[in-house]
């Protein structure tokens, strides 16, 4: 792989940009691999990357039924934060956030990580108490967050209306090192690095069955034939239930549609991420100038990637109240993604009832921020066969044992 650098750019500029090589190869599947990962989204590719980088396992295939990064990795609102309440979540998300800090250098691929700061507005007294508690918890966990008053909120976000009639801004939970990154670049950067390590990324290859013998996984049937392996990682977000069924077990997960939308591009007006959880809307401005807006989750099971229109109305109504100046903005695009929700709204990184079959799912409405940490923890689990410290608490068996990691407000949306 030729490294990307300012010298490469200069060299190619003199060469009419004819010499750039493909970022990753598109090989045909081999008969067997040491490990197979189903799902070439951010989490799947990150898992493969850290399997190779941290554990030296490089004979790996990543199977994708559609195209690379075309599921929720390409459908989220690119927000990165780690201001969670519970210790296991804070550890995992802070690991991810800290990996994001150096990911561009690590992958030699500009993922445009922008730690521009993130505010979670408190608009009721209940929320004030909740966020003060989170700030204290984060202090103990070593996650840098602080509580700020309404005047400081107004300083950071001049376009905000802090004395709205229904829900005035009473303060905010501020994470200065939270922010955004370019979501596609995260998938592309990991894919390029995986391909460079000799891993096979096989797109348009849908898994149709999981094969096993004596309770141990032996391979998968796909639309491109049987592929053998002794280690299988299922990292398929919204379709986790489907693939788990192929592997012979049921997950404590339900699939719902979560929507997002962007406005027409406007001049820079907001350089932080703002989440307003009481009125339920969150917004940031992309580098292109579009206001990126996160909407609500439907309350019913849905695999269609199109959500209910009334959620968009509710979200925009809330945001117009909070940011009156956006009231005449036209919305450019709207889309939905299928999120896999667990009972406690925390993810699952776990062994499964099938031997040497591992699952990483349940990220619900907040998976993008966790990609590097999730891949790190999942790779550790797949390489050793046992969870490391990051994944230990996120077993799928925690539901039976009542050891929930209750983050019901984690995504800042009313589930």
């Amino acid at each position, binding site marked *: 792989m030729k490294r990307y650098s300012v010298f490469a750019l200069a060299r190619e500029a003199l060469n009419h940009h004819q010499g750039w090589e493909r970022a990753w190869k598109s090989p045909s599947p081999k008969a067997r691999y040491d490990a197979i990962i189903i799902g070439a989204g951010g989490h799947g590719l990150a898992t493969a990357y850290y399997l190779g980088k941290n554990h030296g396992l490089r004979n790996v295939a990543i199977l994708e039924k559609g195209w690379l990064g075309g599921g929720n990795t390409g459908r989220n609102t690119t927000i990165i934060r780690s201001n969670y309440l519970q210790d296991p979540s804070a550890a995992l998300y802070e690991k991810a956030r800290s990996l994001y800090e150096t990911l561009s250098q690590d992958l030699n691929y500009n993922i445009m990580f922008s730690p521009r700061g993130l505010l979670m507005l408190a608009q009721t007294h209940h929320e004030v108490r909740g966020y003060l508690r989170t700030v204290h918890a984060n202090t103990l966990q070593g996650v840098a967050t602080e509580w700020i008053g309404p005047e400081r909120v107004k300083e950071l976000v001049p376009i905000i209306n802090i004395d709205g009639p229904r829900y005035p801004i009473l303060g905010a939970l501020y994470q200065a090192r939270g922010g955004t990154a370019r979501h596609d670049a995260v998938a592309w950067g990991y894919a390029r690095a995986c391909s460079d390590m000799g891993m096979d990324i096989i797109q348009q290859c849908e898994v149709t069955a999981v094969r096993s013998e004596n309770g141990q996984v032996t391979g998968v049937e796909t639309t491109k034939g049987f592929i053998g392996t002794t280690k299988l990682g299922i990292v398929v977000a919204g*379709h986790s*239930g*489907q693939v788990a069924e192929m592997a012979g077990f*049921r*997950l*404590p*997960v*339900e*699939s719902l549609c979560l929507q997002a939308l962007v406005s027409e591009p406007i001049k820079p007006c907001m350089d932080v991420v703002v989440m307003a959880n009481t009125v339920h809307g969150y917004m940031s401005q992309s580098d292109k100038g579009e206001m990126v807006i996160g909407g609500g989750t*439907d*309350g*019913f*099971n*849905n*695999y*269609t990637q199109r959500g*209910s*229109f*009334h959620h968009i109305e509710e979200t925009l109504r809330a945001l117009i109240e909070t940011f009156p100046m956006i009231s005449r903005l036209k919305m450019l695009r709207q889309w939905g993604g299928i999120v896999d929700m*667990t*009972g406690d709204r925390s993810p699952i990184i776990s062994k499964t009832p099938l031997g040497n079959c591992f699952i990483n799912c349940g990220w619900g409405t907040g998976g993008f921020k966790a990609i590097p940490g999730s891949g790190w923890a999942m790779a550790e689990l797949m390489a050793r066969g046992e969870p490391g410290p990051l994944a230990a608490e996120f077993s799928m068996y925690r*539901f*039976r044992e009542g050891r929930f990691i209750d983050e019901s407000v984690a995504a800042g949306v009313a589930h």
Partner: protein
Amino acid sequence: MLLLECPYCGVKAEETELSPGGEAHLKRFGPGSSDDEFEAYMFARKNPKGVHFERWRHAYGCGKWILAARCTATLEVFGTYVAQSSAPPADIVEKIKAKRPEWKGFS
């Protein structure tokens, strides 16, 4: 946008008039049941991509719980029926079988 006909008041209710209530026909397990049974009852939903039986409440109408048969892959509604049912009624099952020959049936 979903339209469900309320089997009690006959209103064709639009989605904002309804509250979703999750999978229908759950068999409840309580004290004395095994850990497996209780975990499955509490958390392990079928979550199918296809035919799904589910509970809704006609929250901003007559207020009653109703049941619906719906396809989660297309949002097609096969029918609604009263909540006092331990299994989907035969006519709805027939209708689903006609439209989804690959469907394995209610279990």
